[in-house]
């Protein structure tokens, strides 16, 4: 109770005199380089219906060192919900940075800490019901390469415990001091998967770890 009071007081005081923040805006787009997509979309012979993932522990870096860490940093990015694709970070004024680093997925401590709210609410469809744990990255669609009747591929990548921990770190160069646009090169990601063999992942496994690492490499700043 006392601590809460102190926090309240501090908040009131800082409202009056702290530096005004100039937020850096982060935007996510589906696609890398020149081509960008809005779901549902076709890329080559594939159709993509859903792309959804967690970004957490966001840090801005300069010269290889973190200059700012986002507090309570958990974001659900859902390309079927435009409301999740851009937000302002509460960065201080005149911040200089040349890279952004974040986790693709949810850390293991959060995975074992019970029900949470906001983007971490298990009702957001990114939580496994029958075996506890967040789904870090989801992509669903169809491809003629998939040998099943409906040709559907479903990749729900997650798992927080060894040996199938899937959390990835993404560390990418950005333009100094500008708003950040992060692209996920989904075409390259899908092209890296042999869909005649691997097309259905819905639980933690070695394949999920491999695909998570591949997905993490498909992010870049545009």
């Amino acid at each position, binding site marked *: *109770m*006392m601590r*809460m*009071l102190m926090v*309240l*007081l501090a908040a*009131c005081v800082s409202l009056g005199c702290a530096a005004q923040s100039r937020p850096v805006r982060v935007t996510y787009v589906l696609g890398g380089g020149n081509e960008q997509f809005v779901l549902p979309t076709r890329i080559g012979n594939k159709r993509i219906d859903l792309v959804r993932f967690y970004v957490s522990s966001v840090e801005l870096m300069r010269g290889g060192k973190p200059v700012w860490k986002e507090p309570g940093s958990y974001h659900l990015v859902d390309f079927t919900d435009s409301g999740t694709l851009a937000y302002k970070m509460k960065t201080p004024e005149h911040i200089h940075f040349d890279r952004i680093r974040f986790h693709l997925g949810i850390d293991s401590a959060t*995975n*074992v*800490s*019970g*029900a*949470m*709210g906001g983007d*971490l*609410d*298990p*009702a*957001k*469809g990114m*939580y496994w*019901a*029958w*075996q*506890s*744990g967040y789904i870090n990255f989801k992509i669903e669609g169809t491809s003629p390469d998939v040998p099943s009747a409906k040709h559907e591929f479903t990749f729900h990548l997650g798992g927080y*415990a060894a040996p*199938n921990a899937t959390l990835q770190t993404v560390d990418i160069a950005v333009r100094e001091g500008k708003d950040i646009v992060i692209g996920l090169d989904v075409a390259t990601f899908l092209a890296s998967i042999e869909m005649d063999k691997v097309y259905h992942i819905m639980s933690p*496994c070695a394949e999920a770890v491999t695909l998570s690492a591949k997905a993490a490499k498909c992010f870049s700043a545009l």
Partner: protein
Amino acid sequence: MRRGRDPISKGGKMFFGAMRKWAVLVSCVAAMLLSMKKEKASLQFKVPDGWPRPVYNLQNNPLKKETILLGRALFHDPILSEDSTISCTSCHLQYTAFSHVDHALSHGINDSIGTRNSPTLANLAWSTTFMWDGAVNHLDMQPLAPIAHPAEMASDISVVLMKLRRSQHYPQLFRDAYGDTGITGERFLKAMSQFMVSIVSAGSKYDEVQAGKATFSEQEQKGYRIFKQHCAACHTEPLFTNNTLANNGLTMDSVLRDTGRMKITGRGEDSLLFKVPTLRNVEYSYPYMHDGRFERLQEVIEHYTTGIVHGPTLSPELQKKISLSANDKVDLLAFLLTLTDREFLYDTSYSFPRFVFFGQAKD
């Protein structure tokens, strides 16, 4: 008399003093007073004498009478299942220590049969892992499993939340619990946890004896000695589980071929490891084991004395044969029956909260 099963008591004294001189911050103080008022309503979890601290983090989910009631209503309400026919109580019936006695494998929606026996629910605040294979890592996340399981409730949490928002009673129950009618997954799950945390069984004859308020018969006392020698390494007092997963020497079921923990981890060394269940109220948790293979406690004791399968993952505690005479077996059984907590089985604070749905009865 206050008993372990009734672990809730008013609490939460506030300290509030020197800050008044900050006259400028009137608004902050007002906010404080409001939150104080709210916290007054929070309850303290009473840990039975001699028990360890609960594992469930109550700081993240402070107990409140109204929230427990919300959880209790949800626990008894078939609204959680796809066709509104199955509630948590369908498989976890209070009178049978919150387990499902008639069926070896629990029955769910459309009479489909699950693959495991529904365990007794008690003292969940002290559990570190849930389900027979430890698939669920936190009490909060437990309800997601049956709600989504196609053979159990066959629904989805987002669908359940939608039904609750549209229902006649729940917006008000959520408001009572949380101050507004927002119905989120987090609030839903935390309310369910509050009710489950409140399910405490600590009033058996065994507990009375520990507290010096009763004495074991000679037979029970002998049984207790045998229990401590052969069983307590895993079924550790006072919770009667050590919260681990172990292979207690059962043969693998030939139909379901359930490998237990290995299903989750894929590791050979986890083959046939199952959660050590509590033995509190074991008289009522029949049929026994993850697949309900034993009907009677005598068969369980027979298993431990003559039925142990020496597979590669058998627990070290059971490597050496347990030899018990016919009398020993009867004594051990007599001790196991002292773990029955009758008041717990009939405690109305866990039962269907009729008044929530139909108003207060006038009697």
